[in-house]
Structure formats: C-alpha cells, structure tokens
C-alpha cells in the first residue's frame, strides 16, 4: 500500500508502524514517530496499524538553536 514517509510516497508491505521502520532500515536508530500528525510512542509502534495513504513522520535529534 502507498504510505507517505517524511513527505515521500512509498510502496510498503508493512502492516504496522514498527514494521515500516524495520522495512525502511531504522533498526537501532534513535527516532521518534508521528502518524497523520499525532505522536506515536515507541511502545505503541507494534500495535499501530497502517492504512493506505497514511502519513508517517520519522525524526531524529538534530542541531538547533
């Protein structure tokens, strides 16, 4: 199904947010996630189901002022 990850439309087979992260090579990375504009805690990724057209944001620490 088509999922938009960080603004890029991708074809993903993963059923859950955790599965999407694994499929996209984020294993072991320090990241936080949001789905359709709502924060999804790390512990909830396994049970967060994805649907066609969902928008995922995956962020990491970065320099800031």
């Amino acid at each position, binding site marked *: 199904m088509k999922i938009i990850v960080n*603004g890029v439309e991708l074809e993903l087979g993963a059923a859950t947010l955790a599965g999407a992260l694994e499929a996209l*090579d984020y294993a072991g990375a320090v*990241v936080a996630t949001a789905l359709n504009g*709502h924060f999804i805690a790390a512990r909830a990724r396994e049970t967060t189901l994805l649907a066609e057209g969902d928008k995922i944001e995956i962020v*990491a620490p970065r*320099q800031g002022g």
Partner: protein
Amino acid sequence: MEFYGVEIASRLLLGTAQYPSPAILADAVRAAEVEIVTVSLRRESGRLREGQDFWSLVRHLGLRVLPNTAGCHSVKEAVTTAQMAREIFATNWIKLEVIGEADTLQPDVFGLVEAARILSEDGFAVFPYTTEDLVVAERLVEAGCKVLMPWGAPIGSGKGLNNPFGLRALRAHFPDIPLVVDAGIGLPSHAAGAMELGYDAVLLNTAVAKAGDPVAMARAFAGAVEAGRAAYLAGPMEARDMAAPSTPVFGKPVLAR
C-alpha cells in the same frame, strides 16, 4: 539559578546549529563551560541516519539538553514536536516556539499560551520563546510556565536588545521567575547588557556559531555573561542627563586671572 527545580551554574545557554564542524561545536561548548544546549528534531533517513552522530556527540559532551520546537507555526505542530522530543531526549524540558510571522520569526503569542497550557498540563517544563509583552508573560505564567524567555531581537539578527525598557519592566514585574533573553544577541556586550538588567541567563546560537573563531567567541560570551551578572549584583549607578563632576569641586585652586 534554578530552572524547574534544577540547579544550574552556567548562565550561558548555547544553541548547537550552524557551527563549522561538530568538533568546533564541542570545543565552543567546553570553552564557555556551558551546561545547557538547545537541540531540535528533524526528519531522519533510515539510510543516511544523519541525526545519530550528532546525538552521540551531544551525549558524549554530557550536557543537559533543551529541545526546541523550532519552525512550528501551529499549536498542534508544536505540541506533537514536544511529545516526540520528550521521548527521544528523555527530558520533559521544552523550548516552546510557535512562530507567527516568517520574516521576523516573531512568536505567535496566542498560540504560544495555548500550547504552553497543553504541555504544562501534560507534565512538560515549558521554556517559552516569547516577546517582552508583560500581559503575554502573565498568561504564560498562568498557563504553568516557571521560566520565561523573551527575545532580545529577531532570531539570527544579532541586533541585541531592541527594547531594554520592556525587558527591564519584565524583570521588575517578575522578580522571582527565571528570565532568559533568547534570540537576537549578536555581541558579548549585548549579553552583558541583558545580565546587567538582572536577567538570569542568555541563550544564543548564531553569534557564536557564525563567528570567525567560534571557540574564542564562546569564551568571550562566557566572560561577558559573568561580568554582566557581577555588575547587576554590584548595583549599577543611576544614569542621569547632565554631567556631574567626579573630582571634588571644593578645594580647587583659583588660577584664572
């Protein structure tokens, strides 16, 4: 000085962006003996993992981090960003920015108060990036903020303290709340000026990161902050419009014919 019950010795807070290299950032932070640095969250690629090295560096420095919500223009964006930051940085501290105008990066103070209330009720320790407006400051305190961070001038402008009168009034109005001048500071003299007004600390980034020698400039800012604080505690004289001779007039010999 305490921020939300945490004792902080260094009154200079530094941003971590725009340095020529990670090594220079690390050297600048060490040179100024900074305890708190600001950080942000940005999109991460699973392949490139650009944020992971930066996070390793910050953790290695052993500093307390103050995550920001930079670039957020709505309450929802800011709240969601804060929630992500709390998880990733393992802190409930958040430098809350809700930007209202693109050219000046002026805070949307209405959205700021709303977001501050939501986040405070959710257990965050909110450091709001605000203006020097007294009424907005009152609302922020009512919303749960125990620190206020008024701007000196627009972010990255380096113009210093645009409204010393307003900043002085804010200090007088909130004698017991930690006040930090955040944004617009371009020179150590600006930082010293803020401290001479009785501000508890200053937060800056560009003035150090974009200096010809960021490490030397970080050191200069640390000295200025210390001098400004010492001057405030020493009790500066009142300014006056007319001259007043410092050398005694009495006893001056009469030499004119």
